[in-house]
């Protein structure tokens, strides 16, 4: 596969390490829950449950053998076609993440 890196252009996917669903960006704040049960419920859903779609999938890839950027790649899991590649940092900021 080839991932069209937003800064470096087309790169062989072999240079990257795959993590999984880009929803992992939406990590809850562990101190934001009323009690441990609520926190664990939220973290369980966050960490373990997946949409796992047969079709368009937004996912995290790390350019381990390249520039060390984490990318959010929008890829079809049936055809492997990639329609969008973004810097994960930009995506995270757009989703309201900061410090």
């Amino acid at each position, binding site marked *: *596969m080839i991932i069209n890196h937003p800064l470096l252009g087309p790169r062989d*996917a*072999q240079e990257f390490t*795959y*993590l*999984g*669903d880009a929803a992992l960006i939406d990590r809850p704040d562990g101190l934001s829950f009323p009690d441990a049960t609520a926190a*664990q*419920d939220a973290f*369980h*859903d966050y*960490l*373990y*449950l*997946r*949409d*796992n*779609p*047969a079709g368009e*999938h937004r*996912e995290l890839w790390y350019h381990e053998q390249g520039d060390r950027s984490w990318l959010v790649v929008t*890829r079809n*899991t*049936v*055809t*492997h076609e990639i329609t969008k590649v973004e810097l994960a940092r930009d995506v995270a900021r757009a989703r309201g993440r900061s410090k």
Partner: protein
Amino acid sequence: MRYSGFRVIAEALTGHKGWKPAWRDPEPQSSYDYVIVGGGGHGLATAYYLAKEFKQARIAVLEKGYLGGGNVGRNTTIIRSNYLLDGNEPFYEFSLKLWEGLEQDFNYNAMVSQRGIINLYHTDAQRDAYTRRGNAMILHGADAELLNRDQVRAMYPFLNFDNARFPIKGALMQRRGGTVRHDAVAWGYARGADMRGVDLIQNCEVTGIRTEGGRVTGVDTTRGFIGAKKVGVAVAGSSSKVMSHVNMRLPIESHVLQAFVSEGLKPLIDGVMTYGAGHFYVSQSDKGGLVFGGDIDGYNSYAQRGNMPVVEDVAEGGMSLMPMIGRARLLRSWGGIMDMSMDGSPIIDKTDIDGLYFNGGWCYGGFKATPASGWCFAHLMATDKPHPTATAYRFDRFRKGLMIDEKGQGAQPNLH
């Protein structure tokens, strides 16, 4: 009709005119007591044991393609019970015991062949881990041996002992491990189930699951609605797709695993072997092909095909382990969709919907589990209680922190 050597001879002498269809092609009935979604190994075995062991009737298996067309028809045919953890080992040992009597049980020669499996180790830490595992296996009633380098060399003198980047130091061996002719497992179960009245319905894709008041009532299919008192889902890589019909998100990702077979070669490798310093495992089929594989490709996929990096990685492992295979040729490759779970272990459990049961998360280890998976799923569906060997395979283990993580990789399916 019963298969036997005498029957084969009699048919040979009379032009093979007497062989009957291995199974019927029935039209689906309007409703069943049990509908099993998925006509792969696990689904067929579930139906077979529901009928045979749990004396249930009015059972249908719905298969979107052809019987045995999923992972049971595309795997590397290995059976073993060399697991470490308490949640797993009793189940896989139960499965291995079922394999040992399977062919006589379902009257089909699936070529269950216990020629032994060895897991090579290359470091002291690996040896320690295998010692721990081997002991756990024996504590659970399985067989295990630890071989030293010389014992491995005596078995397979052509391995790379003298020029290796990661020298072989020994191996964990399970002599009762081996291989089974994979397609024959599906066919044997299918034929056995059909003979016991199970309707095997091919080209019938489930497009919806109907519920009423929190209870399952049946399934919509490409061949119409089929009512059911109980629905069991055993669809491996399609688990998330099917369960999305009831808006269930699963602790599962679908990944592609490639496997390979070489051209036919005169016998070289008697048993099954896994390389401890690379991603490579191999056995040789009764037809002479080396059957081998390695890691999953590592990204979510429903494409049933992979890419070159894994092919090369597997070949590198193979050449490093056995430099004599350089001139053997890879003949065929295939890709299956693996239902990779969050801890690398499966789920056989009820769901929040009454009458809806789930069997999945087998990762790339589902083939060896086929008999026990079918039996335990049938047990759960028939009795509403988990089978004693499958009590750990619950959805809520992730919520409770009771993961069964053989590889210690955590909630990252592509690392299991």
